[in-house]
């Protein structure tokens, strides 16, 4: 029996009322003040971050919401058979080749009979989008019986008219200082008085590919491209990243070379993203001869870029699982792999999901590496496969943000809103999964 003959015991156990002493109470008050400060600091942090988000989102939305509307102009178009299909064959080839611009000019001529000079007529046809003749061509292709009739049709207005209607081009400045001249302003007023010009929901934005004309530009191509690219990224980065993390955290012997891999992964996280683009260019395009601008290459490059994020996050999550859980599983004869798959991984899942989300969010918003592999490109056609030329949402945003046309400003913000919509969707899924896996023990 150990002897504890300590006559001095009371020295370390002072008067029993010490926790009610004034000194202690005063100290407690200070501690509580610190507690409050700490809590407020936490709230302030959340508040600050949320405020930033609100400001950012606010500025994006306030700039972008107008892009969801587009101005159109109604014209009575005479689908003159002699003009469209003189032979009367109704051959689609012939119908497609017809000069629909002339139909529009003629129609405008009847609305604005006073415009006789070449310049004025030109000015007037600039009210309509350069895509308007194609809209007519589409109508005729879809319904050849239109030929020979006269019909009131809504045609897309040009971007300048659209901006004017939305108030982004001021009316009360000198004519030389606006892209809509006085003749056009008068024409717009005349159309408005006849209810022949109005704003409606901008479906083009959601269904079309890119275009040089803001009023014809859409982000569907970029959405599809982003989807394909991200699908590849996710399919590669998540399994490879999680596997690598599992290996390093659970199986790898602690040797110099595992340290090397660890350092190396941390280092990759700091490599500027454009360097991954260089890598993609050198290895995938030049060495393996993969196609330029293809989602498959973009996906691989972004996967390499997000890999370190996922690995680091997953390792941190695995590390947080208490060893007693592993012992419990091993102790009843689960193999190390089963231990990891059945117990450790599910417990680490919230952290893994967080890493995946942050990695994917990064990949979803990244432009620079794609520049090197040709995805920063003007691509009109909607990609149909993983090797077709494609672009992605952030690149579309980047290119629109750099376009001179005023109307692209609002579309840039609209595209950002859509991108964020996808992000929120992705996050939503992760929140759901995270909630499923999360538990405190």
């Amino acid at each position, binding site marked *: 029996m150990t002897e*504890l003959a300590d006559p001095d015991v009371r020295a370390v*156990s002072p008067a029993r009322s*010490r926790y009610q002493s004034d000194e202690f109470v005063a*100290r407690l008050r200070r*501690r509580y003040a610190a507690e409050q400060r700490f809590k407020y600091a936490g709230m302030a942090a959340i508040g600050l971050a949320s405020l930033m988000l609100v400001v950012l989102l606010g500025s994006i939305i306030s700039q972008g919401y107008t892009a969801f509307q587009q101005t159109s102009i109604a014209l009575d178009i005479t689908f003159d058979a002699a003009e469209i299909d003189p032979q009367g064959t109704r051959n689609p080839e012939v119908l497609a080749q017809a000069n629909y611009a002339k139909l529009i000019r003629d129609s405008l001529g009847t609305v604005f009979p006073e415009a006789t000079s070449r310049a004025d007529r030109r000015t007037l046809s600039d009210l309509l989008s350069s895509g308007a003749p194609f809209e007519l061509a589409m109508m005729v292709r879809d319904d050849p019986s239109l030929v020979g009739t006269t019909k009131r049709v809504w045609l897309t207005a040009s971007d300048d008219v659209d901006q004017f209607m939305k108030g982004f081009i001021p009316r009360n400045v000198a004519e030389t200082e606006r892209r809509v001249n006085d003749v056009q302003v008068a024409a717009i007023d005349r159309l408005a008085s006849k209810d022949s010009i109005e704003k409606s929901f901008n479906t083009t934005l959601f269904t079309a590919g890119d275009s040089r004309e803001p009023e014809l530009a859409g982000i569907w191509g970029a959405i599809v491209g982003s989807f394909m690219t991200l699908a590849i990224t996710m399919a590669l980065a998540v399994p490879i990243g999680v596997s690598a993390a599992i290996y390093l955290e659970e199986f790898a012997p602690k040797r110099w070379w595992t340290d090397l891999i660890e350092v190396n992964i941390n280092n990759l996280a700091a490599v500027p993203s454009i360097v991954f683009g260089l890598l993609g260019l050198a290895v995938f395009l030049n060495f393996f001869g993969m196609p330029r601008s293809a989602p498959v290459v973009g996906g691989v490059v972004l996967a390499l870029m997000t890999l370190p994020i996922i690995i680091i996050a997953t390792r941190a999550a695995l590390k947080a699982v208490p060893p007693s859980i592993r012992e419990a599983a091993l102790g009843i004869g689960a193999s190390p792999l089963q231990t990891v798959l059945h117990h450790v991984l599910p417990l680490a899942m919230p952290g893994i999901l967080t890493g995946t989300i942050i990695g994917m969010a990064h990949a979803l918003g990244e432009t620079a590496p794609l520049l090197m592999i040709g995805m920063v490109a003007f691509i009109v056609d909607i990609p149909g496969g993983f090797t077709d030329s494609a672009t992605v949402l952030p690149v579309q945003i980047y290119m629109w943000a750099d376009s001179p046309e005023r109307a692209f400003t609002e579309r840039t913000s609209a595209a950002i809103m859509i991108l964020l919509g996808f992000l929120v969707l992705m996050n939503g899924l992760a929140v759901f999964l995270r909630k499923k896996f999360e538990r405190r023990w």
Partner: protein
Amino acid sequence: MGATMNAPSALPAVPVKMQARDVKVFYGAKQALKGINLDIQENRVMALIGPSGCGKSTFLRCLNRMNDTIENCRVEGRLTIDGDDIYGRDIDPVQLRARVGMVFQKPNPFPKSIYDNIAYGPRIHGMASHRDEMDEVVQKSLQRAGLWNEVKDRLREPGTGLSGGQQQRLCIARAIAVSPDVILMDEPCSALDPIATAHIEELIDELRENYTIVIVTHNMQQAARVSQKTAFFHLGDMVECDDTEEIFTNPRDERTQGYITGRYG
């Protein structure tokens, strides 16, 4: 076997340190305690015994409001310390916990050095202003918990690297380092070997002079050895509370009898 008690019996009336009146505890919809009435006397050791899951730990955690940290836990009834309502406005849980220390069932050393584990409490309560004082507090606490000799050369090593029993003694040392009024111990010796257990029991006996102690134990002998009062819990009820000798030799309730005799009678 019978209760081999070495504790004094039939104590004179002493002031009541803590009091429970009709204490009910719920975990969500599940009721864990069904109205406990209990007086805990000053400078006495009170043992709580009873089968597993009967609510001993739950009750113990009410005494220093550790239940506050459990999400869906609700406490009803009145609990007092020195006449003050524990759940009342006047009492602050932090202050309360400093007055009512706790040692848990599973040893839970902090992921810090052995030294810092002990110094943690005194430091937050501002009990030692100098390095030397702190060193002394740490050494005293470790000595009283009977761990000093084993760890004196490795005070800077992490507390989590100790064996199970060492960890538990570390937690005891940590609790007594802040010299609370009341010490709650939830099976403090379950991970200890007999020598260490004896050491702790001696310590408890010694602490009793200045402190009030409530101990949960599954070891009848231990309860008999260290406590002056014993309360028997069963299925969320406090069946019986009396002088320890009384309980072990002459239980009034048949459930108590059944339990303490078990196959050990």
